[in-house]
């Protein structure tokens, strides 16, 4: 009985601490790097791309969005971040996919062989 009480109490404490930490992390006055797109003038950015004044940018995302029409002329901003500004991370991720599928193939190859042997033994006994 005490085991269940201790489990429930610790679950509640972890939940309250998690909500408080997440709320504290995302408050705008605590996190210095945040992208507020109100200062970006998109029509002027589209027309003269290289001369856009980028000095009062407040974070990484503002710099990326403001230099995107001149460097990587893509309409999709997320695709340009994934494949152009952060292409090295995407190479690593596709190799994680390759490694996971290759190791699953290795593990399950002997599983198929054991299963076939067990079925043959069961059929021979019958």
């Amino acid at each position, binding site marked *: 009985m005490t085991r269940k009480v201790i489990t429930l109490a610790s679950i509640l404490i972890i939940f309250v601490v998690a909500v408080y930490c997440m709320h504290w992390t995302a408050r705008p006055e605590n996190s210095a790097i945040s992208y507020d797109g109100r200062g970006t003038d998109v029509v002027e950015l*589209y027309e003269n791309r290289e001369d856009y004044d980028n000095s009062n940018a407040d974070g990484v995302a503002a710099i990326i969005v403001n230099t995107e*029409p001149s*460097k*990587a*002329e*893509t*309409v*999709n901003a*997320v*695709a*340009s971040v*994934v*494949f*152009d500004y952060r*292409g*090295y991370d*995407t*190479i690593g991720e*596709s*190799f994680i*996919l*390759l490694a996971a*599928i290759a190791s*699953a*193939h290795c593990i*399950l190859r002997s*599983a*198929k062989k054991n*299963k076939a042997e067990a*079925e043959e033994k069961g059929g021979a006994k019958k």
Partner: protein
Amino acid sequence: MKKMKEGINVKNIVIKCGADAILPFAIVFGFAVILFGSVSPGGGFQGGVITASAVLLLYLGYGTKIAKQAISSECLRVNEGIAAVVYVVLAGIALFMGASFCFNTLKFGSMGEMLAGGTITFMTYAVGYKVLTGVGFLLLMMLGLLAGKDEEEETE
């Protein structure tokens, strides 16, 4: 037609009709999400997983034996490695042209058209193909372990 009707149990006919109806939509929609990856929301990873659901629908409607006859797993395994090599070659082109790694160097149009993002568009195709074949091979291998139960049901 007679052969198909002999092999199918009555309780599976509804699932077979449902899989028949959804399968062409899944494949076409998945390819559309991959192809327009640089213009509209979506991209390589999302479209690849949508198209790989065709293997799952084939298994649900018809069983493992027919799914293995329709899609060969050796072909999928080889193509996954080819797509990975193509992706690395495309990323290394920018190094030979004097820019940083994975820079967009093959621009063929103005902003807003489909070929405007040069290497970004081709990288989307490569990653979409890689995820398609990889996840399809994984599903086919794991569903192939359940073959024993299906064969016992059919011979009874």
